[in-house]
């Protein structure tokens, strides 16, 4: 077991971290809004933590706060993500469907070029030697774990309470919801900003975890991966992004013996999953269990 954790600890923490990013895409999808902006907020949150953790001007503050510096970094990333999320979300969420997705792709690209042009963010090289919170990678589960529990709890609770049902009604039919008097923009911005905040804090936790931070954290491929977690795992249950991340993050590791051709197989898995698991892993499981229960009831 010790060997398992020492060799796969990083992978385990990585799964939880990517599941958080998947959930940040899942929230706006609750209101039927496909946003690929998460990765931009993740990248920004990481830069906030990396700069606060390494900038010489803040050395005295780090000295006096000690470990509490990390929560302060999360807080700064959170506040920045919420402000920026509102600024981007309010105009952009008037757009529908593919336009929204394209606008958020554009946002993430602009963030990328902007950080590359800011001297404080270290240019193309990025920021490295970010102070570590723990000695082992696995211990970062103390950061990511509680955040995942919180994010899942909010997602499950939302299905039960009023505002959550209003959000779901927008996904089912935005026009009908608006006709019923729902302020749709407000209820679209709410899950969007919550997703942005989650991505920003995840980024702030990830900068120490990954030790270095650069513009490659915010690429288009990475944002697509987040969407893939949700769709492959199942977009109708909060467990979807978790299962999706577990499968897609560990897949390249499992396929490692295949070396160079493993990424080709990764693509094959994506295509097959879209065709054969249109409702994701969770959807496939729930219809399977329903069928088994049906068989049992028929037998009794």
């Amino acid at each position, binding site marked *: 077991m010790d060997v398992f954790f020492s060799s796969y600890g990083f992978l385990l923490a990585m799964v939880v971290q990517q599941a958080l990013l998947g959930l940040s895409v899942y929230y706006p999808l609750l209101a039927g809004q496909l946003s690929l902006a998460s990765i931009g907020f993740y990248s920004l949150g990481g830069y906030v933590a990396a700069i606060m953790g390494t900038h010489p001007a803040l050395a005295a503050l780090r000295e006096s706060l000690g470990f509490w510096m990390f929560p302060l970094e999360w807080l700064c990333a959170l506040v920045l993500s919420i402000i920026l999320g509102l600024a981007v979300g309010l105009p952009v969420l008037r757009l529908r469907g593919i336009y929204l997705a394209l606008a958020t792709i554009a946002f993430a690209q602009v963030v990328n070029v902007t950080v590359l042009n800011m001297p404080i963010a270290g240019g193309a090289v990025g920021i490295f030697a970010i102070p570590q919170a723990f000695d082992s990678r696995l211990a970062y589960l103390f950061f990511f774990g509680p955040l995942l529990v919180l994010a899942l709890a909010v997602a499950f609770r939302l299905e039960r309470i009023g505002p959550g049902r209003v959000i779901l009604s927008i996904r089912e039919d935005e026009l009908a919801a608006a006709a019923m008097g729902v302020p749709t923009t407000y209820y679209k911005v709410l899950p969007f900003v919550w997703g942005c905040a989650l991505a920003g804090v995840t980024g702030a936790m990830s900068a120490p975890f990954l030790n270095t931070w650069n513009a490659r954290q915010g690429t288009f491929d990475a944002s697509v991966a987040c969407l893939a977690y949700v769709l492959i795992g199942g977009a109708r249950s909060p467990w979807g992004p978790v299962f999706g991340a577990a499968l897609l993050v560990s897949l390249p590791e499992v396929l490692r013996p295949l070396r160079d051709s493993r990424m080709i197989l990764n693509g094959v898995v994506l295509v097959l999953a879209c*065709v054969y698991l249109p409702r994701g892993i969770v959807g496939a499981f729930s219809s399977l269990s329903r069928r088994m229960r049906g068989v049992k009831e028929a037998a009794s």
Partner: protein
Amino acid sequence: MTPAWFIQSLLNGLSIGSVYAVFALGYTLVFSILGIINFAHGAVFTLGAYLTYALAVGSFGLNGLLAGVSLPFTLPFFPALLLGGFLAGLAGMAVERLAFRPLRRRGADALLALVSSLGVALILVNLIQYLAGAEIYAFPADVFGGLPPAVIFRVAGKPVAVRTAQIILFAVSLIMLAGLMWAISRTRAGKALRAVAENTDTAALLGINVNLFILGTFFLSGVLGGMAGTLIGTSYGISGPYFGVAYGLKGLAVIVLGGLGSIPGAVLGGLVIGLGEAFLPADMSSWKEAVPFVLLFAVLLIRPQGLLGERMEQKV
């Protein structure tokens, strides 16, 4: 702002913008028929560049499975461009068969087509890397035969240089754009294609083989993407298997700027973005990659239907 700088930027912008237009039309054709964006278009763009390189140069780099392999023949540039485009068109058809048709048959969520087309893109890009390696490929300087590398003339005493590659980019793009517009507006097949784009069910009832036209659209889209990839590759070099990702995203900015599904819109959008990049002052050149996306963002906020797009009515 000297007149020479103005003329130089204008020529640079028109040349690259016309290729953006050709590439973006590949997105537009598929979008106007299926209402879906084909995210594998950037990978087909890359594939086209590699295929033409292989046909024109005949040998591969030092890494990858094909290292040291050389073709028994090489083609002059223009036949290689056409054959490379044709093969990229076949790849476009493969994308439709693998990523789009299975989902359409099952009536799946449109979002899934986004992921499945990205899956196919992942397969294509990594297949290229597996076969040809991750290195940079540059077309040899004499790829156009005996033509001089550049034409230089003077404007108000200052030299303006137009590279031969840029002239070829512009000329080939114009021919392709004109040919495509003629085919869509004047031929019988073009008429049927417009009918399918208007309404697939009605078109099917009128006896049009819808699946065949969708496959044909993907072929055309692949040809446009592959030839655009080759043109950019000859001018700027092929920077590796991920060469198409940045252009793929830029192409999205082009079609949104012009108006999704609008053919003149894609042409206008390509030229606007090409000129926008070219006229960026030299001291801001590190922001060049942001130009298409800032324009995209701005147009979505001010005029979401794009410059030439029609406002879509909301139906209940």
